[in-house]
């Protein structure tokens, strides 16, 4: 038996047979990038998609006119399909042109003219396929033609065509289609001229058609089923839309009702990608919808990659777009990039990788183990594996552990453009309000909540304490004396920001009318913390918060509910304290400071201001700041706004998260980015190196099986003897 096992082991090793390789053998050593996704992407239609998981895919396929520079920090917008980043032209109410620096209140129109590069082609796709007469082959599919069609790649013929400005115009119109539920429509309606009216007109068309169908069908009419069988077709050109104009084949204009410089950031997001009308017509066919072949699953773009396979419960495969236009790897003036080897491909044509395979991995443990085996190229780190992956130097800097260092795995950290906070409900009688006493109560709680400790305990040091809503990397962030929160921290040149003592918090609490945590009638102060936290970590975090408040005499009561109830409480302003967060859409302080702008109050206006904070002075400054360029005047206003927030303390400013990413040594050019999502084209992998490492790390170990079999054999002997004796024994 032992010889047999040894023989098998030897033959497996000799033939280099790796048993645990999850990929087909033909992918061995190829120029392929391997990564994971942990849940099915909901939408891949650029008018609907709005999550980072989805952006990882569609941003490689769709190309809006602008993009972020891959290497430069702070983030900088550069052209993608546009010839240049457009500069706005401002016009007053009288129609006269205004200078660039005009104050927002004078601007009645802002016009952005975008010129796209000629010669850009779409990926090969059946929606463009034409017959000899020039008619589209697959725009009227019969059931016979659909017989063997289950994926887009099952179509025999494909075609392409040149990108035109009309495709961008068409997509902006699609954003107003009520059936697409574009998540930024309400934001765009505020700024793009006529968009609200256009969306309303489309909605009326839809409702009129529905009413007609309902009336003619009778009592048993089922709208959902009917629209599945006979989709309603809306004519996007049936109504005027003054906010977008097609100038010529390569030029279009976006016209805004007011000065809104942030529109440029939106132009770098997939919402503003081009959409060929042929694709919409093609995918609207019921025969395709019935096979789950929709635009929401099978994108059509001009990007560096095209979608080859989508099985959202198993894998998603992107392949290099054969028609991708010329784009070169960027240069950078940052010296750090050169040291990190990020400039060795400068000037070379993109993309470098031929294929990207994303595998579904719902649980972290298998994902992590497969990363260590070399089957995934990059990985994040969970709290469970943190100690295994990371160790800290004497100076407190994170580095990979010995094990990971032995595998040449690199760690790249990145402060996210996000902020977490505890929000007080400013409408609440106890913790809300704008009197000095209420401010002091909130300031005392802010001091007591020692988030430096929280970051160490609960995030393994992956966070930076926050002093205001603005995170690092965003204009207006400061961590020197001028930037810290003086109501919570003391600043010294030697130690930097040091949290104030609990005695200071108790003093503030006493001044707020709660000496020793009791009100003037001797009633203990109780604060209710609303949340929907679940899981093992939730109890520990709640216990930590309770202890921190107990330290200054405040009792915290936990009100955990399911997420639906919790969301209702937030929406109705029916809470005292809750934990919340925000991930930036674009790198501008406006995208953080608007979270406390009065007209964005959640309870009153269904906005993103969950604290329902309303301070006229802050609101006035926000209105002034939001349309300004980044300059010293804007910085001064932002400082003033931050100071108001620090004094009023509608939030306990907690921390800005820091992400840790692990990369195998065969992955080149990796630089984490919070804003750029179309980063796959810059990456390079060395498939040969990876294959060698996989072979080395994954040789099967067979000897324990031999031992197990031998042990079973040994244990079976006495049992066999017993049977033998019993069978041959005499009856008793």
């Amino acid at each position, binding site marked *: 038996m032992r010889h047999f096992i040894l023989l098998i082991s030897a033959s497996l090793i000799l033939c280099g047979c790796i048993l645990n390789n999850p990929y*087909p053998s033909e992918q061995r050593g190829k120029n392929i990038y391997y990564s994971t996704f942990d849940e099915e992407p909901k939408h891949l239609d650029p008018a609907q998609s709005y999550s980072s998981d989805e952006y990882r895919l569609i941003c490689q396929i769709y190309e809006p006119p602008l993009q972020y520079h891959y290497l430069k920090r702070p983030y900088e917008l550069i052209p993608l399909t546009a010839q240049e980043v457009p500069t706005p032209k401002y016009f007053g109410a009288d129609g006269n042109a205004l200078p660039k620096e005009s104050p927002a209140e004078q601007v009645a129109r802002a016009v952005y003219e975008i010129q796209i590069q000629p010669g850009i082609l779409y990926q090969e796709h059946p929606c463009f396929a034409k017959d000899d007469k020039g008619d589209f082959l697959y725009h009227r599919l019969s059931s016979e033609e659909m017989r063997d069609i289950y994926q887009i790649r099952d179509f025999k013929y494909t075609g392409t065509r040149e990108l035109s400005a009309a495709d961008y115009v068409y997509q902006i119109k699609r954003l107003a289609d009520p059936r697409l539920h574009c998540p930024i429509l309400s934001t765009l309606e505020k700024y793009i001229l006529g968009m609200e009216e256009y969306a309303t007109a489309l909605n009326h068309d839809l409702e009129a058609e529905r009413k007609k169908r309902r009336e003619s069908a009778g009592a048993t*009419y089922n709208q959902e089923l009917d629209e599945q069988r006979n989709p309603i077709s809306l004519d996007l050109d049936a109504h005027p839309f003054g906010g977008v104009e097609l100038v010529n084949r390569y030029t279009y204009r976006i016209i805004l009702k007011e000065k809104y410089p942030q529109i440029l950031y939106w132009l770098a997001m997939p919402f503003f990608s081009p959409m060929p009308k042929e694709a919409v017509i093609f995918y609207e066919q019921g025969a395709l919808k019935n096979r789950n072949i929709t635009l929401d699953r099978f994108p059509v773009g001009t990007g560096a990659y095209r979608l080859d396979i989508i099985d959202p419960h198993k894998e998603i495969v992107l392949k290099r777009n054969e028609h991708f236009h010329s784009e070169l790897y960027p240069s950078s003036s940052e010296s750090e990039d050169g040291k990190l080897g990020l400039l060795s491909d400068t000037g070379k044509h993109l993309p470098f990788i031929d294929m990207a395979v994303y595998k579904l991995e*719902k649980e972290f443990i298998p994902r992590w183990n497969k990363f260590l*085996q070399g089957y995934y190229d990059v990985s994040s780190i969970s709290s469970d594996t943190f100690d295994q992956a990371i160790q800290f130097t004497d100076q407190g800097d994170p580095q990979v552990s010995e094990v990971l260092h032995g595998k040449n795995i690199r760690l790249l950290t990145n402060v996210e453009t996000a902020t977490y906070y505890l929000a007080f409900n400013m409408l609440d009688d106890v913790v809300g309000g704008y009197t000095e006493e209420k401010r002091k109560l909130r300031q005392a709680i802010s001091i007591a909540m020692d988030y430096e400790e929280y970051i160490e305990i609960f995030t393994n040091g992956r966070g930076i304490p926050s002093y205001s809503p603005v995170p690092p990397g965003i204009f207006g962030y400061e961590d020197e004396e001028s930037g810290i929160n003086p109501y919570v921290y003391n600043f010294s040149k030697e130690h930097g920001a040091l949290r104030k003592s609990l005695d200071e918090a108790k003093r503030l609490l006493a001044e707020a009318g709660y000496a020793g945590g009791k009100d003037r009638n001797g009633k203990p102060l109780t604060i209710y913390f609303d949340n929907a936290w679940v899981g093992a970590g939730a109890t520990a975090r709640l216990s930590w918060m309770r202890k921190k408040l107990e330290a200054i005499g405040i009792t915290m009561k936990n009100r955990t509910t399911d997420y639906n109830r919790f969301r*209702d409480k937030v929406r109705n302003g029916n809470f005292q304290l809750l934990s919340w967060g925000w991930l930036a859409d674009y790198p501008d302080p406006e995208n953080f400071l608007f979270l406390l702008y009065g007209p964005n109050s959640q309870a009153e206006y*269904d906005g993103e201001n969950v604290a329902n904070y309303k301070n006229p002075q802050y609101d006035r400054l926000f209105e002034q700041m939001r349309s300004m360029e980044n300059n010293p005047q804007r910085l001064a206003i932002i400082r003033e706004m931050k100071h108001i927030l620090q004094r009023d303390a509608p939030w306990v400013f907690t921390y800005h998260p820091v992400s840790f990413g692990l990369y195998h040594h065969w992955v080149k050019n990796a630089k984490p980015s919070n804003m750029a999502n179309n980063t796959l084209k810059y990456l390079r992998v060395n498939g040969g190196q990876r294959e060698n490492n996989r072979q080395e790390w994954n040789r099967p170990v067979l000897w324990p099986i031999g031992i197990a079999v031998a042990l079973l054999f040994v244990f079976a002997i006495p049992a066999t003897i017993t049977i033998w004796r019993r069978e041959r024994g005499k009856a008793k």
Partner: protein
Amino acid sequence: MLAYIIRRCLYAIPIIIGVNLITFLLFFVWSSPDNMARTILGEKNITQEDIDNWKRDHGYHLPLFMNFRESGLAVFTQTIFFQKSVGLMFFNFGRSDRNNIDISREIRRRIWPSLAIAIPTFIIALLVDITFAMLVAYYRATYVDFWGVVVCVTMMSISMLFYIIGGQWLFGKMLRLFPISGYDTGTNMFKFVILPVVIGVIGGVGMAVRFYRTIFLEEVNKDYVRTARAKGLGEGKVLFKHALKNAMIPILTNVVMTIPFLVMGSLLMENFFAIPGLGSFTIDAIYAQDFAIVRCMVYIGAILYIVGLLLTDISYTLVDPRIRLE
């Protein structure tokens, strides 16, 4: 027997309607169409108008049970309950709320990965469990029996999650014999199926062996077994030929009831091994508040349960000629 089967099928109709009604009530007590819309549309920048539009598109703008804005029959038909239930009763599952995919097609796709794991696990586990149970019963009152029971109790006390993580660690990570997770079709499927099947069999062996052992011990003390022994039959023959046949009724009750549920998939296995089956389909739908999928899966589950009960009754007649279904 045919009359019996027809009668049972007719009994099933009110049960299925009841299950549908209870699912409906439970779902809408826990969630509301507004909450569904918020979960599906996302958290950022969503207005009440977006929510109303979404409800309108998906038929959730209607009242739950009675629509007093309508008249006549439409009072009942123009309601969420009616609109969502009628198609379901005729196996027209419609489209998912979350991303408009055709649910029937998705179920047809996902049933195979679930079965690819469940069927081999079921068959191998049955063989292994019965064999071990008979061996333990055979060695009753010896150290094999004693330690067999101790091992069984220990194994059944351990969570399935431990077997999965431990199995992935041992066979996938340390011994590197199988891919830690994943799934593929065609012949590539085998390398992904072996580990979950092995873990599924090992994870269930403790409870099953202990259960079957009890059944066998009950049988081996009966008169017909003593008679068989008195006739000079060997212990092996007595157990495998006589005791096993007579122990089939409780075994069948246990086994046949599980067959219909094989198609529903295993949540833990599918999640940890990234198997695109029906178990993960259902749980994803619950998290996403996709009522369209949840109600379909509950409906299918209810039907399978009824079928399972019916199959159990029929199987009794096959193994015990004394039983007649009337």
